[in-house]
């Protein structure tokens, strides 16, 4: 119970830090703490494969993608210049909506009786609920079609990213890049 409380406080604090941080790099650090605490929470819930995947995919791949984009965008320019604030009071309805939704969930939970199933064996034992073998059997037998659709989703994402962020249509020559000054506040958009 103490472990759960520590993990929960860590997750909530890092989530608040992520949302309120001034710079996106700080948000990435907060999100990293959140993901690692969440992976440990998965271990307490007998989801050992998901705990590993959480570390590898989220902390390893997705956060590196964020850091990479932040580094790419802030190189050679003043980083993250905000424009004029057109919705200065957006925080108020956001907080009201958040608190209302949370209250609705608390009411729904208070009206439900949970009876968690008893599982013989600890996390990490072979062939109990949530072991890697158990998860793999479920993934490759009962849920084989969703697994295959996952591959399709990833392929669509790859093609979409190449189409969106690729430099130019294939067959054309690359446009000449404009050399940038180290710090040049309102830089011209790159001629394409």
């Amino acid at each position, binding site marked *: 119970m103490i472990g759960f409380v520590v993990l929960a406080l860590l997750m909530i604090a890092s989530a608040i830090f*992520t949302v309120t941080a001034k710079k996106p790099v700080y948000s990435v650090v907060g999100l990293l703490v959140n993901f690692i605490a969440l992976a440990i*929470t998965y271990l307490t819930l007998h989801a050992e494969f998901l705990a590993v995947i959480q570390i590898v*995919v989220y902390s390893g791949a997705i956060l590196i993608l964020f850091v990479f984009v932040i580094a790419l965008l802030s190189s050679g320019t003043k980083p993250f210049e905000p424009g004029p604030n057109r919705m200065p009071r957006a925080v108020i309805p956001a907080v009201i909506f*958040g608190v209302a*939704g949370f209250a609705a969930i608390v009411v729904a939970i208070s009206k439900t009786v*949970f009876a968690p199933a008893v599982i013989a064996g600890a996390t990490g034992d072979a062939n109990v609920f949530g072991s890697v073998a158990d*998860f793999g059997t479920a993934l490759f037998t009962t849920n084989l079609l969703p697994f295959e659709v996952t591959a399709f989703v*990833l392929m669509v994402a790859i093609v979409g990213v190449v189409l*969106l*962020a690729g430099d130019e249509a294939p067959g054309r020559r690359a446009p000449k890049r404009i050399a940038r000054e180290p710090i040049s506040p309102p830089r011209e958009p790159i001629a394409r």
Partner: protein
Amino acid sequence: MNAPVEAYIIVAAILFFIGVVGVIARRNPLIQLMSIELLFNSANLALVTFARSWANNAGHVFAFLVITVAAAEAAIGLAIVVIVFRKTTFVDVDEVATLKG
């Protein structure tokens, strides 16, 4: 499981609505995308909690699929941020007011 199911679900709800506030109130698209990752993660926490509660690993498979979709979403969202930043100097969703490429 060293805490009741309700505690896990309440933590997931808190994380979810922190993410909601981040998506609505922040103006930096990168932080908004990270808030969306928070939303995915809180949904995953609820799925894994219910999977443990009923000892049924369909919830694990579902959380696995959510992680895959989150990866695809992050890649495409960041690609959009990059091309928007190529057109304008701002990294600010309020400034993106046109669909013209």
